[in-house]
């Protein structure tokens, strides 16, 4: 096993076609071939969430001998960040936040370094250094450092009783906050879920959003109005189109001042979004893209040899936008982690691209799913001559909207009736022209077999066995 891995390693590698043209990387070989044969690969992974764990699973699906060291600044291993609002709501206890079993690291022969922050990466000596000054060498490195919550520069934002919700420590801090009145700033997914969590705990909650409606990046006005009504029905006060300009209080937060009112409160949760945590990468000389995420190739490689990146820290090619974007969502992190992991063990694999996908689960009592773009006009990189379409279908309790660009699906919104939403995901992902299928797609009885002729026609886009076994039937 070791031999076969090493032989792979000795080959000249890394001439790859990327989203940014051809890149050539040199690998450094300090040893002769025979020494190399004995060598066990050392993988270092920085980060401990979706992308990191997915990469480990990909590496271990190919080989078992290498050494994997995982560094995470979180002391609690394997918890799912997206479930933190459920923890705040007292719906899930800590053990139930885990997305892998407690023996995951043992099972996958990983040495976890939990609560250990990496301070520096040396690309030249191929080592990482912890805050305590310990050095660990690597042959391949994965940066899965994720995102960090944005703290808006509002006067008084450093007062006690104000927190973001990103880490386990944040969740515990919010859980411990005393008082009856809470203000949540930012009505994105985290903001909405946190508001509902705090409401469930018996608090008076105000949800403050500076844009015109709740979930502004996830839904359009019409879908948001259905959801906003549900949120209000739960007893949450939603204030949209107003900006927080100051936090008052002597040490401890007492109120949030907006452009037109003052909202008394005992605590504030900041949920205005995340941005890639790139400090470590930047210091190491890793190239950052124009959107502020680590720039990666389709193999999830950074500009430095043997250093890969995946998850919320990266910017990747977005299939719905036809340009780079930061899609900081769980499924993208898992996909990218898998691609990175496979390439780290020399299984050349290309990422097909990311796109936004959001599902509002049972939180508000009505299912709602959204993917890709929410409006035709939000496509900023569009060139002339492109044709956009928006197709809508509205009933009393449901709303469905499709966004098309040159006959291709680039976005979908489903509220109330969300069955078969995955059919839109796959059509968007595989860039299928659906022009002739619009009446079928917008119909509420849509099912997979309706699309079979379309899938057959685009068979080159559906090469996996699971599609073939259905395409071949009834011919």
């Amino acid at each position, binding site marked *: 096993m070791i031999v076969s891995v090493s032989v792979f390693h000795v080959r000249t590698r890394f001439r790859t076609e990327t989203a940014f043209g051809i890149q050539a990387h040199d690998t450094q070989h300090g040893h002769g071939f025979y020494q190399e044969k004995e060598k066990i690969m050392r993988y270092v992974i920085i980060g401990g969430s979706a992308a990191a764990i997915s990469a480990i699973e990909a590496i271990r699906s190919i080989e078992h001998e290498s050494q994997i060291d995982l560094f995470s600044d979180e002391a609690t291993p394997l918890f799912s960040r997206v*479930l933190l609002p459920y923890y705040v709501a007292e719906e*899930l206890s800590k053990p139930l936040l885990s997305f892998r079993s407690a023996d995951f690291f043992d099972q996958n022969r990983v040495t976890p370094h939990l609560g250990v922050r990496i301070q520096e990466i040396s690309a030249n000596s191929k080592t990482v250094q912890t805050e305590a000054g310990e050095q660990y060498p690597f042959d391949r490195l994965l940066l899965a450092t994720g995102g960090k919550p944005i703290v808006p520069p509002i006067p008084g934002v450093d007062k006690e009783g104000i927190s973001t919700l990103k880490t386990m420590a944040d969740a515990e801090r919010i859980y411990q906050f005393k008082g009856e009145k809470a203000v949540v700033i930012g009505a994105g997914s985290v903001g909405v879920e946190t508001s509902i969590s705090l409401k469930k705990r018996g608090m008076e909650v105000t949800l403050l959003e500076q844009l015109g409606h709740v979930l502004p990046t996830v839904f359009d006005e019409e879908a948001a109005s259905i959801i906003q009504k549900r949120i209000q029905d739960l007893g949450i006060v939603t204030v949209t189109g107003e900006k927080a300009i100051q936090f008052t209080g002597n040490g401890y937060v007492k109120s949030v001042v907006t452009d037109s009112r003052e909202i008394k409160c005992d605590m504030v949760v900041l949920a205005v979004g995340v941005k890639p945590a790139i400090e470590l990468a930047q210091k190491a000389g890793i190239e950052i893209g124009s959107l502020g995420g680590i720039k990666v190739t389709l193999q999830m490689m950074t500009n430095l040899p043997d250093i890969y990146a995946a998850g919320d820290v990266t910017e990747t090619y977005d299939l719905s936008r036809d340009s780079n974007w930061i899609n900081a969502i769980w*499924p993208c992190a898992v996909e990218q982690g898998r691609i990175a992991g496979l390439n780290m063990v020399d299984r050349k694999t290309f990422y097909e691209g990311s796109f936004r*996908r959001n599902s509002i689960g049972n939180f508000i009592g009505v*299912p709602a*799913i959204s993917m890709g773009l929410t409006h035709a006009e939000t496509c900023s990189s569009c060139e002339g001559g492109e044709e956009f379409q928006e197709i809508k279908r509205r009933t009393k309790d449901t709303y469905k909207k499709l966004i098309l660009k040159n006959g291709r699906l680039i976005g979908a919104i489903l509220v109330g009736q969300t*069955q*078969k*939403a995955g059919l839109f995901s796959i059509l968007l992902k595989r860039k299928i022209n659906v022009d002739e299928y619009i009446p079928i797609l917008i119909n509420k009885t849509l099912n997979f077999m309706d699309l079979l002729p379309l899938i057959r026609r685009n068979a080159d886009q559906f090469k996996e066995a699971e599609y073939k076994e259905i395409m071949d039937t009834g011919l």
Partner: protein
Amino acid sequence: MKILMVDKTKCTGCHQCELWCGTEIASVPKELYQAIHEEPHPVPRVYVEEKNFALQCRHCEEAPCIEACPNGTMRRDPETGLVYVNEPTCIACWMCVMVCPFGIINPSASMKVAIKCDRCRNMGYPICAEVCPTQAIKLEDRKDYHKKAFEVP
């Protein structure tokens, strides 16, 4: 490896598979008459689509539902390669519903857990294939639709 093949030319659209899946797998009493009157109504894991095609989970090689699941509820059985929902941990976020390319994952009637075909992994043989009167649904050994995930380590 075994694949649950569906032959469109043999399917008569009789819905026996749905009826039996809904009774034997989804219902509490496991008896047709009582299942029909059960509240909330049991949801079958197989769907007869377009009049004559019974579709159930394809247990994809790279399953998008497993990748999208934020807490490891959607799992692959390492022994068989079959994908299943670990119902006790499901938080009903519907991420799997959002990404299933076949549209065969759905909320349960109670809207509490995601429901999908696990090819009756605890029963030895899929009920839909067992009851299909024309053998349109058949469990076949097929090398031509190989999925690496089904290789037993």
